[in-house]
């Protein structure tokens, strides 16, 4: 039962943030305050690589639904606060950042979980919950681009070595929008409709934003609209950071099967809970049908620090490189990469201006998941 309760951590943080917005004044800082607080807490807590023993889909998914539905609620309460509490400029800024942060985590994991489901209502709510970060068309490009191409040069969500967070995020936003538009347009054309006919998901996405902002306007006027839109735009860029931390520097030969090593996993206790196991990433790519509570952590994977700590460190690229990702990639290249991947990795390192850290054991790499073969 404790396993089920743990996942209420994310909705609880959101509820506290919402109460903070409602209270106004200094309480507006609760939302953004959660970011460093959770990072520190996660860094102090031990790693968690246990499987969950949860059987009830209903009870397991309840916090996911709560987290998703809380997204518009927190925007609405903040809008109300802008209209009714006397917020200082700084408090408004704190609110904007807090909204953006919560839209990213747990916004992305919760909506991702719902839109990967097969139920119509879940997919609908998952899709439009993403209005919080202005990306109601995300699921298409996520499955076609990210799942199909993960780790290869064709995946816009995989950052090449040497690419800093800022440049990656800017490029991802542009590319993901381009892809989202193209995918649906191509599909409509194949089905005999106009490329940008009313059936294109773009129109419904825009409608969602308009309706959302209309409610915000009703609650807090143009100031609220301006502030919330700012939040949503910041969140739109910030959500790309998830991909940055989960796939940075990975290489895979186009066409080669996706294996467990082709992602980064973050097994911090709170990373897993707060982000509904989105950081328990390896299994998800191998089988996207698996709901979050059934994902099995890959015990052979390279240990990464808390995802929230990563979120902080990425803002300072030299820190991200030296403390987190370079040591991880060095180990990955030498112990996990296939010979073809080593070649790709070497080339990326060279282009990034990184040192050559290969221990030159071409063909003799140890593969953790290789069994001994039966002879005769």
């Amino acid at each position, binding site marked *: 039962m404790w396993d089920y309760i743990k996942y209420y951590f994310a909705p609880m943080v959101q509820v506290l943030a919402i109460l903070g917005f409602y209270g106004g004044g200094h309480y507006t800082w609760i939302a953004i305050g959660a970011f460093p607080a959770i990072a520190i807490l996660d860094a102090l807590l031990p790693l968690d690589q246990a499987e969950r023993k949860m059987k009830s889909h209903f009870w397991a998914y309840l916090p996911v639904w709560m987290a998703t539905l809380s997204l518009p609620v927190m925007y609405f309460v903040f809008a109300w606060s802008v209209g009714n509490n006397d917020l200082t400029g700084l408090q408004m800024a704190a609110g904007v950042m807090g909204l953006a942060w919560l839209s990213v985590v747990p916004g992305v994991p919760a909506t991702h979980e719902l839109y990967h489901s097969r139920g*119509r209502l879940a*997919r609908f709510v998952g899709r439009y919950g993403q209005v919080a970060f202005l990306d109601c068309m995300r699921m298409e490009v996520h499955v*076609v681009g990210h799942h*199909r191409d993960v780790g290869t040069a064709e995946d816009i969500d995989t950052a090449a070595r040497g690419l800093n967070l800022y440049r990656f995020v800017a490029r991802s936003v542009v590319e993901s929008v381009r892809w989202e538009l193209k995918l649906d347009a191509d599909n409509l054309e194949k089905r005999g409709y106009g490329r940008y006919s009313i059936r294109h998901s773009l129109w419904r996405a825009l409608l969602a934003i308009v309706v959302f902002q209309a409610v915000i306007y009703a609650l807090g006027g143009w100031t609220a609209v301006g502030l919330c839109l700012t939040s949503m735009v910041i969140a739109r860029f910030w959500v790309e950071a998830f991909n940055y931390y989960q796939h940075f520097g990975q290489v895979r030969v186009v066409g080669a*099967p996706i294996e467990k090593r082709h992602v980064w996993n973050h097994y911090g206790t709170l990373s897993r809970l707060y982000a509904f196991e989105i950081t328990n990433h390896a299994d998800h790519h191998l089988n996207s049908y698996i709901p979050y509570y059934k994902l099995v952590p890959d015990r052979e994977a390279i240990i990464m620090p808390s995802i929230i700590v990563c979120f902080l460190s990425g803002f300072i690229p030299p820190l991200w490189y030296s403390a987190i990702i370079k040591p991880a990639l060095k180990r990955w290249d030498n112990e996990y990469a296939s010979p073809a991947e080593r070649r790709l990795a070497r080339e990326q390192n060279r282009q990034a201006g990184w040192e050559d850290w290969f221990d030159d054991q071409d063909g003799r790499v140890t593969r953790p998941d290789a*069994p001994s073969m039966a002879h005769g």
Partner: protein
Amino acid sequence: MRSFLQSIFGKAKPKQVRILPQDVTITVDPGQTLLEAALANGVAYPHDCTVGTCASCKTRLKQGSVREATPFGYTLSKAELDAGYILACQAVPRDELTVVEIDPPSAEMPVAEKFSATVVATEPLTHDILKVTVRADRPVHYVAGQYASLRVPGSSRFRCYSFANAPQRKGRADLEFYIRKVPGGEFTEALFRGELDARPLEMEAPQGAFHLRGGGAPMVCIAGGSGLAPLISILEHARVNRIKRDCTLLFGARTQGDLYQLDVIRNIAANWQGEFRFIPVLSHEPDASSWTGARGLVTEQIDPRFCKGAEGYLCGPPPMIDAAIERLVGHGVPLEKIFYDKFTDGRND
């Protein structure tokens, strides 16, 4: 009116799906996709990405209609959509009975075309087998198990080499071959000396009818020398598509130094659905060596236990194939279930 109310408040009638060619009928729970229901019922359904982007689960809809969780048109072409193909991993049945058919791989045998290809990489696998990577001027579509014919412009004849890596849906421009040096052979001597590097070759591909048949029968694969190539292509492709069949791979070579691509085989075995047995057999390994595996002729290691209900896939020199066929038939494998590709070279002319 009554059926409308029933659809909202009544208990949903269970939906059935009949899967061909296995002719298995399963029940699909509400909200389940076809693929999920099939796998839950133990039906070995080809699949890979589960998100509707790789087309491994491409299926022909023969009766009924389905809802698309993710639009099939993101991955399938207009021709495929018009022909009634769906993606099982994203298809939710609408009607009480839906009938679908999984196409056998041979349904997609592409027509052979001419290409220009250049050797871009070579890697020695053994003292006389080279892994050659060739880049074609455009992506090549082929079925795992087929081969390409290569010729140096101006030369008198083509040489045939099986594709060693799995095909890709969008076609593959970088192709791998395992090429054995034929002593005194015009083509391979030049190749091994590096004289053909970066020189354009003429290629006609894909050719051949050797491929993995559909269904779930156990596989007995026997490779001799460079005959491993089409089997690796087939096994890689099967592995990626999570095809679930028991498989025994017998690999015959002369000595330990003649075994190659063991890492690749290990990887296939580690990720194989069903049982995977790898049996390397050495015919000329010195008695005193450290080799603890099987010795003798590879065909002598064909055990009746793994032949029950199996299909045979054989690639290698003609004497090996002939002996293997005799052995398999002796163990009860019908002749029409044995498929082979005889590897001949200049020495056999």
